[in-house]
C-alpha cells in the first residue's frame, strides 16, 4: 500500500521528537446567538497536549464545549483565537487545501453512527471514499484495502453491499471506524462514539478501539459524558464546564481524587451497577446555563462551596499533584488535603 505520509516526513520527525501528537493552547471559540446579545462561549482558554499513542478523554455535560474542541482540533470549526497543532502542523492557520490533504492523518468518528453515513453510499463506497480521496489505490488494490479494513473492524465482508439503514447501530459505527481508519491516520477524534449504542455493543466497540490503538499506535481524543467509558479507555482525562477546562490529569487519579467540585459532582452522579456502591448522597442543584457568565468562576452558579472570592475571577488551572491540575481557588489552599468526606 502506498503511504500517504511520505511526502512530508521531515515535519513528522520533528513532531515525533516532541512526542506530542496534539497540542492545544489558549483556544477560544464563541458562537454568536441569533439575538446577538448573549453569545455562547463554547471554548475559553482551553489548552492541553496529547502524546503519541495515548488517549485523552474529555468529559463534560451538554454545553461544556467538548465537541467544539474536538471539531476545532480537526479544523472543522474555525477558532476565534488560540493555537492548535496536530502532528506538528498548525491547524489554526492552515490553508483549506492543506488541511484537506492532512485529513488522511487525522480523522473523526461521530456520535450518531447512522447519521454520519451518506444514506446513498453502501458500506463499500463509504469505506472506499477516503482512499479515493487521499491515495492512488484503485481497482483490485482498492478492493483489497477495503476488505482488509472491514476485517480490521470485525465486519463481515458480506455486508459490503448493504446500505446504512440495513445495518445495526454497532455495525454502522464499525463502518464509521473503518472509514476513519482507511488512510491510516495517526490521530483519531472519537466524539461520543458509543453514546447511542446498547451497552453490550458499546463494550465491543470500545474493545475494538483499544485493540486498534495498540495495533496501529493511534492517538485518541475521546469525547464522552460517560465516566465508565472514559475510565475504560483513557490514560488522562480533561473535565470541561461551560467552555472551560476545569480539571485535567491521569484518569484514575482524577476520578478517585477529584480536585474540582464539578468533577466531584460528575462522579457523584454516576450510578454503579453494583447495588453496594452507592452514589454520592448530595445531588448538585441547578442546570448548566450556557449564557450565564458572571466574570467569576464558571461554576459559581451551581457550586456548593462558592465563596465571595469565586465571583472575582476565573481561577487558572493550578497543579494539585504532579500532572493533575484543577481550576478552583480551593486547590492551592488545600492542595494535598482531601476535602471530600467519605467520597471514595
Amino acid at each position: 500500500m502506498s503511504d500517504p505520509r511520505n511526502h512530508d516526513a521531515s515535519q513528522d520527525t520533528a513532531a515525533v521528537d516532541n512526542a506530542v501528537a496534539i497540542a492545544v493552547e489558549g483556544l477560544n471559540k464563541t458562537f454568536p446567538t441569533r439575538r446577538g446579545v448573549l453569545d455562547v462561549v463554547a471554548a475559553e482558554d482551553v489548552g492541553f497536549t496529547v502524546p503519541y499513542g495515548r488517549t485523552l478523554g474529555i468529559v463534560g455535560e451538554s454545553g461544556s464545549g467538548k465537541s467544539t474542541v474536538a471539531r476545532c482540533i480537526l479544523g472543522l470549526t474555525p477558532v476565534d483565537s488560540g493555537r492548535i497543532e496536530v502532528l506538528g502542523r498548525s491547524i489554526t492557520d492552515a490553508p483549506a487545501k492543506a488541511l484537506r490533504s492532512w485529513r488522511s492523518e487525522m480523522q473523526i468518528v461521530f456520535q450518531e453512527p447512522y447519521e454520519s453515513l451518506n444514506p446513498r453510499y453502501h458500506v463499500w463506497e463509504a469505506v472506499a471514499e477516503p482512499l479515493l480521496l487521499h491515495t492512488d489505490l484503485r481497482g483490485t488494490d482498492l478492493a483489497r484495502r477495503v476488505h482488509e479494513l472491514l476485517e480490521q473492524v470485525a465486519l463481515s465482508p458480506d455486508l459490503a453491499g448493504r446500505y446504512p439503514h440495513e445495518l445495526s447501530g454497532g455495525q454502522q459505527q464499525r463502518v464509521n471506524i473503518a472509514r476513519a481508519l482507511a488512510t491510516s491516520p495517526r490521530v483519531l477524534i472519537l466524539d461520543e462514539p458509543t453514546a447511542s449504542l446498547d451497552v453490550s455493543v458499546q463494550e465491543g466497540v470500545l474493545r475494538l478501539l483499544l485493540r486498534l490503538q495498540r495495533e496501529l499506535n493511534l492517538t485518541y481524543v475521546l469525547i464522552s459524558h460517560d465516566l465508565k467509558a472514559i475510565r475504560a479507555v483513557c490514560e488522562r482525562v480533561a473535565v470541561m464546564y461551560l467552555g472551560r477546562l476545569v480539571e485535567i490529569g491521569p484518569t484514575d487519579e482524577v476520578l478517585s481524587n477529584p480536585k474540582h467540585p464539578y468533577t466531584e459532582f460528575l462522579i457523584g452522579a454516576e450510578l454503579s451497577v453494583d447495588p453496594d456502591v452507592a452514589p454520592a448522597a448530595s445531588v448538585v442543584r441547578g442546570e448548566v446555563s450556557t449564557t450565564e457568565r458572571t466574570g467569576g468562576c464558571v461554576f459559581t452558579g451551581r457550586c456548593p462551596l462558592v465563596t465571595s472570592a469565586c465571583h472575582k475571577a476565573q481561577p487558572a488551572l493550578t497543579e494539585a499533584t504532579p500532572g493533575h491540575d484543577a481550576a478552583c481557588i480551593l486547590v492551592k489552599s488545600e492542595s494535598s488535603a482531601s476535602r471530600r468526606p467519605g467520597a471514595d
Partner: protein
Amino acid sequence: MTAPALVVRDLSVEITGRDGVTPVLDGVGLELRRGRMHGLVGETGSGKSMTARSVIGLLPPGGRVTAGSVQLGGRELLGLDADELREMRGASIGMVFQNPRTALYPMITIETQMANVLKAHLDLDRRGRAARIRERLRLVGIDDVDRIARSYPHELSGGLAQRAVIATALLCDPDVLIADEPTTGLDATIQRQILELIAFLQSELSLSVLIITHDLGIVAQYCDTVSVMHDGRVVEDGDMRQVLLSPQHDYTGRLIAASDLRGLHAQRVQDARR
C-alpha cells in the same frame, strides 16, 4: 402483603407489518408491588418499551395482544374500550417518556396543557385547577411555579421540562407511574436529579413505579425489583440485589459485565503497568 399494583401475565404481542407478522413479546410476566420501584431493563429490541405500551393500551399500528392479561389493582385492562383506556391513562396510571420536550405539546403553555389533563379527568373549577397545577409543580421541585406554568416547552431546559412532564403525570393522583427511559438524553447531573425526584415522589405519594431503562445503574441504585428482558422475553426477574449480585441467567451476567466496562478498565490498567 397487599395485592400488587400492577400484574402482567403471559403477555404476547405481535405486530403485523409489511413483512408479515412479527412476534415482539412472548409470554412476558411482571409484578409491580405497591409502593415499590420495579425496573424493566433490556437493550434495543428487547421488548421493554412494547411491554409498557401494552400496559397502557398504546401499541403501535399493527400491534395486537394475542394472549395474556394486564391487571391494574385487580382490574383487567386488556379488552377495555378506547374511552375506558383513556380514562385509565392519566387517572390511574401516570406516564413519563424519554425526551420530555417532545412529550409536551409545543404550541401551548405548561399550565394550559396541565389544565387540559385536569379537565379530562377531574371535575374542578378554574381556581381549583390552577391551585392543583401549582401544587404539583411545587411537588416536583419547581420553585418559581408561576413563571414555569406560563412557559412554553421550548423555553424550559431538559431537566425542567421533565419535571413538568412528571408533574403532569401526577395531576390526578395515579397509583402507578410508568417511566419509559425518563432520563435518557439528559446530562448525568440532571439524570441524578430526576431519579432522586422520582424516588422522593415514590415514598411521598406511595407511588408504585415501573421504570423502563437500558441502564443497569439506575436499576441498581433505585429499584426494589427488576425484570431483565431479552428478545421479547423476561429472562430473569426478582429482587434487585439478588438479580444483580448473583445473576442466574447468562444474558443478565453479560449485561452486568458490559455495563460497567470493568474488564476494559482492568485491561487498560494492566497494559499501563507493562
